């Protein structure tokens, strides 16, 4: 029985080290469902409330969400999708060709850890809903460590189920997300509408006044910084920076028939992020400032609301664990993906025990995008610019080197410069992604020019020495 299951799982081919064949390409519907499901997620129940906690005003929120999410869609459509449909490789295999095996292994470890933490926060969100019928004490806004045994048991249970679904592969994840997406979106809308009368909103006309005074009143909770239009815009744009500008979704969009499927992210950004962040902000105001996702959804939509939080956590955690599994699998290609995913799921579940991951989610999401972004810039430049200036794309593969120094230095120096901007100039982490991308792009061109010429010269010297 055990052998049969293992052999069945072994046979799930996800094309980790080869281009996706044409007969495996998926239609637009699959991506619309995937993006809508993935971005109408458990974490939206945290991000919306945290905007309220950070005292963003109503006008800043609405305008910032519009601009930021539009920029995010454009980033998917014009940066990530065109490369994904041309190379049809996973992010990790593409990076291996450019950076070499050693460097990409380092990157993959960092990447997988980030994915684990992100998926961990989603598991924690789902657990806040699962714990409701058992009356488990939920962590509060200022809790950083596990608060009770009941909380830990709930997190382990939720983590195990989510890991099992992730092991079954992309096909299953996509199907699960497709079924959940339309229902989840409606639950968010319904929950917000149902509690509006509690806040004094009884007509469309009264919405804006209450929104400005009772929901997004512009006053941060004590101990939290004040957010402006720029914070909301850049957060909305870069919340998924690792996926679009950082090219993480090469692994997903490689299944797309056309690059235009990158616009499918519109469902995720506008139905998911915009609508869900606004709705969850309203729920927090109706719950008198309570920010724990499970209880605020239960308060407004009953058992269906709690189920929604749980499923919203799952649909996001699943593809995130799947991506983390791919990241680690590219380091140890001889180990089957399902075994790797199982270990990743365990690490993720342990991370989920810590409520800090949820309560400091905005900072973590910004950091996660920033750390992975330079490699996205490297892929972009390597694909479009490097061949045009007489250098070699996929240099590590061509030169058969396990470590592309140009890529390694670009990644390291970009992060050091961004961190120094944060530490010494006081630039908030939400704003570092944009200058960081240009720093990475410029550095990669300059260092490649120096490094590739030097490497070619050294090779020529070796060849001439041999011929002598």
């Amino acid at each position, binding site marked *: 029985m055990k052998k049969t299951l293992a052999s069945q799982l072994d046979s799930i081919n996800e094309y980790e080290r080869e281009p996706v064949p*044409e*007969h*495996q*390409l998926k*239609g637009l519907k699959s991506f619309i469902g995937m993006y809508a499901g993935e971005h109408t997620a458990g974490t939206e129940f945290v991000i919306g409330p945290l905007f309220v906690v950070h005292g963003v005003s109503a006008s800043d929120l609405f305008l910032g969400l519009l601009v930021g999410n539009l920029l995010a869609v454009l980033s998917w459509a014009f940066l990530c999708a065109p490369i994904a449909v041309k190379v049809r490789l996973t992010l990790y295999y593409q990076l291996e060709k450019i950076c070499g095996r050693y460097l990409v292994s380092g990157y993959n470890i960092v990447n997988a850890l980030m994915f684990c933490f992100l998926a961990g926060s989603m598991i924690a969100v789902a657990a806040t809903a699962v714990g409701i019928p058992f009356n488990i004490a939920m962590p509060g806004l200022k809790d950083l460590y596990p608060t009770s045994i009941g909380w830990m048991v709930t997190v382990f249970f939720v983590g195990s189920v989510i890991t099992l679904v992730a092991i079954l592969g992309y096909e299953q994840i*996509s*199907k699960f997300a*497709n*079924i959940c997406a*339309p*229902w989840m979106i*409606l*639950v968010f*809308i*319904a*929950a*917000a*509408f*149902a*509690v*509006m*009368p509690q806040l004094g*909103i*009884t007509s469309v006309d009264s919405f804006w006044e209450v929104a400005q005074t009772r929901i997004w009143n512009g006053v941060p909770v004590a101990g939290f910084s004040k957010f402006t239009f720029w914070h909301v815009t850049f957060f909305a744009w870069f919340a998924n920076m690792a996926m679009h500008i950082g090219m993480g979704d090469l692994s997903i969009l490689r299944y797309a*028939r056309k690059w235009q499927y990158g616009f499918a992210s519109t469902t995720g950004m506008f139905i998911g992020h915009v609508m869900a962040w606004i709705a969850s902000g309203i729920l927090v105001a109706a719950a008198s400032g309570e920010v724990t996702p499970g209880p605020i959804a239960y308060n407004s*939509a*009953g*058992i*269906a*609301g709690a*189920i929604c939080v749980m499923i919203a956590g799952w649909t996001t955690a699943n593809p995130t664990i799947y991506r983390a599994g791919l990241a680690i699998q590219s380091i140890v290609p001889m180990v089957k993906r399902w075994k790797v995913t199982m270990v990743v799921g365990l690490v993720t579940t342990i991370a989920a025990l810590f409520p800090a991951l949820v309560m400091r989610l905005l900072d973590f999401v910004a950091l996660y995008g920033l750390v992975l972004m330079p490699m996205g810039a490297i892929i972009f430049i390597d694909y479009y610019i490097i061949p045009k200036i007489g250098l070699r794309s996929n240099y590590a593969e061509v030169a058969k080197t396990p470590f592309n120094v140009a890529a390694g230095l670009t990644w390291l120096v970009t992060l050091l410069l961004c961190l120094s901007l944060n530490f010494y100039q006081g630039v908030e982490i939400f704003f570092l992604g944009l200058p960081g991308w240009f720093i990475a792009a410029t550095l990669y061109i300059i260092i490649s020019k120096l490094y590739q010429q030097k490497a070619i010269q050294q090779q020529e010297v070796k060849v001439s020495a041999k011929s002598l």
Partner: protein
Amino acid sequence: MQAILKIISYIGLLLTVVPSFLVFSGAMELSFHKTLMLIGTLLWFFTAPFWMNKQKPSESKV
């Protein structure tokens, strides 16, 4: 059969969202809306998996 399942699924979605508009307009109590939402949720999840994701044979070919 699939058509019937689809109709039930859509009724489930309607039951999930419409009652909230009635609460908003003052025509329904919050607690009743929660019950209807749960019924809608169950209808959706017990019927949608049978017709969603059923790929047409031509869809997987370019």
